[in-house]
């Protein structure tokens, strides 16, 4: 209760602002129409008209909700007009790329923790790469891979993998190093081998960092897949919906695709969060 009321208040305030914004931004069109027909409109008429224009500048929340509902439940999921279909296309590329990127990231982190030369040569680059707008190479990867005959899911997955790779490397190196000197010394007094130290101490200790970096990586992977859909000419996927919406001025379509992307992102982060809660609880770590 302590949390629910304030959150609902903030959300309600945002929705109210949104309605006010859509009246304000859409009224221009309404007034132009009325002036053309030599009518004068009362305030209520203006408001009513701004609520359901066909191509509003800013669609009202209920229009977006309706577009979202139509897209998710109003069509067969295999239909090209179904948002579930497009979301699945984006999500499958995201998940494939996320799995590849996170897997390679953990492997590289293991290497960095155990090999000093690797640590000193790779780690500065991994950190520096986070300051680089990697997303800029997305169109190039898509087009180049298409020119050698690779299209569809895989090029997008490559971008997602690339984007989710570095946060996982940096997070996992931190996680594998999180046991303090005392704990490492204890394992040395047990004369534990490096592998034993890794599996019994470093790996379990890295779990909180693992899930935190997975959340960042999942969000980055989704953005990568969406941007990866832009240069292919708007075939399928949420990015394609955004692009064709902006070509044809279908604002409701853009907003529904955007909210669908937000739902997908929230679902992925939510699933990882739930896994985190369960895992950490069973491992006896406090959340």
């Amino acid at each position, binding site marked *: 209760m302590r949390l629910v009321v304030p959150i609902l208040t903030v959300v309600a305030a945002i929705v109210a602002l949104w309605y006010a914004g859509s009246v304000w931004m859409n009224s221009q069109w309404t007034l132009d129409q009325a002036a053309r027909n030599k009518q004068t409109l009362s305030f209520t008429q203006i408001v009513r008209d701004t609520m359901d224009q066909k191509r509003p500048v800013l669609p009202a929340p209920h229009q977006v909700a309706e577009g979202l509902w139509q897209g998710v439940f109003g069509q067969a999921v295999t239909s090209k007009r179904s948002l579930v279909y497009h979301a699945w296309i984006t999500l499958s590329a995201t998940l494939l790329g996320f799995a590849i990127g996170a897997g390679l990231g953990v492997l590289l982190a293991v290497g960095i923790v155990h090999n000093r030369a690797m640590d000193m040569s790779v780690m500065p680059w991994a950190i520096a790469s986070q300051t680089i707008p990697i997303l800029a190479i997305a169109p190039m990867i898509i087009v180049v891979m298409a020119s050698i005959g690779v299209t569809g899911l895989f090029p997008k997955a490559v971008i997602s993998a690339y984007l989710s790779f570095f946060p996982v490397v940096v997070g996992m190196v931190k996680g594998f190093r999180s046991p303090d000197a005392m704990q490492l010394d204890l394992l040395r007094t047990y004369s534990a081998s490096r592998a034993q130290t890794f599996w019994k101490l470093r790996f379990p200790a890295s779990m909180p960092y693992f899930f935190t970096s997975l959340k960042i990586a999942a969000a980055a992977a989704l953005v990568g897949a969406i941007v990866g859909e832009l240069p292919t000419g708007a075939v399928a996927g949420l990015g394609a919906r955004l692009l064709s919406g*902006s070509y044809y001025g279908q604002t409701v379509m853009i907003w529904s695709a955007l909210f669908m992307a937000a739902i997908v992102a929230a679902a992925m982060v939510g699933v990882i969060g739930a896994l985190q809660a369960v895992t950490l609880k069973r491992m006896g770590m406090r959340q």
Partner: protein
Amino acid sequence: MIWIAFAFLFWAGAWALNARLANGPAAGTRAVRLIVPSLFGLTLLVMWEAVVRGLNVPQVILPTPTEIAVQISESLPILWVDFVQTFMKGALSGYAIGCAAAVLVAVLIDRSPFLQRGLLPVGNFAAALPIVGTAPILVMWFGFGWQSKSAVVVAMVFFPVLVNAVEGLAASERMQRDLMATYSASYWQTLWKLRLPAAMPFIFNGLKIATTLALIGAIVAEFFGSPIVGMGFRISAEVGRLNLPMVWAEITVAALAGSAFYGIVAMIEKAVTFWHPSQRARG
């Protein structure tokens, strides 16, 4: 064949040297800390050059580093114009507006615990969303010029900075605030002299995250429509013409700009939060 052999020989040699340096007695010195990663970077470039030449990879798939360097030196004026359009006009203005707005909002909602409890989860949620997707909408609203890019950047940097700033304003300790109260300091005096300085490490954390986001936002927004200038525009246009050296040249500029931007913010952080343990430990 000779190129490939050379590539692997170079790699083996450089790696052996790196391993020696890293495990040798001088490993902790500053020079080695610089040499080892530079050598690794150089190895990657040499491998790239040699493998691309050895396998005769066509330029439309992967140009060599030397071709990219030649392209950069030939098209400096274009690169500079694009840089000004995307970075100076789009990213920097949006970054300044977005970060200032986020810190202001954080200070404003700081007086109301109710708003804080409501806004923090919403802000955290929004920080994980693919906000870059608002680019087509904002391009529609603000036109093709740099204003729309700036708006996308504002939307992207706002929530990460807000969340960090709110967290930072809560960072001063009870004791310290009580001390201010015994001095009978007003709310604004406490804010100015204690709580804002104490929040600086957190705010700068947000500001550093936002540097990358700003550049990404400005570049991606240009994919949705731009005048015929700008880094994002150039990338998508030259990709269409399969002029890959130019694309790589723009990417190099973007990478340099991103690192420099981050570096400058990190330097300001060092100057502002010199008192913080994380800064003192490094010196």
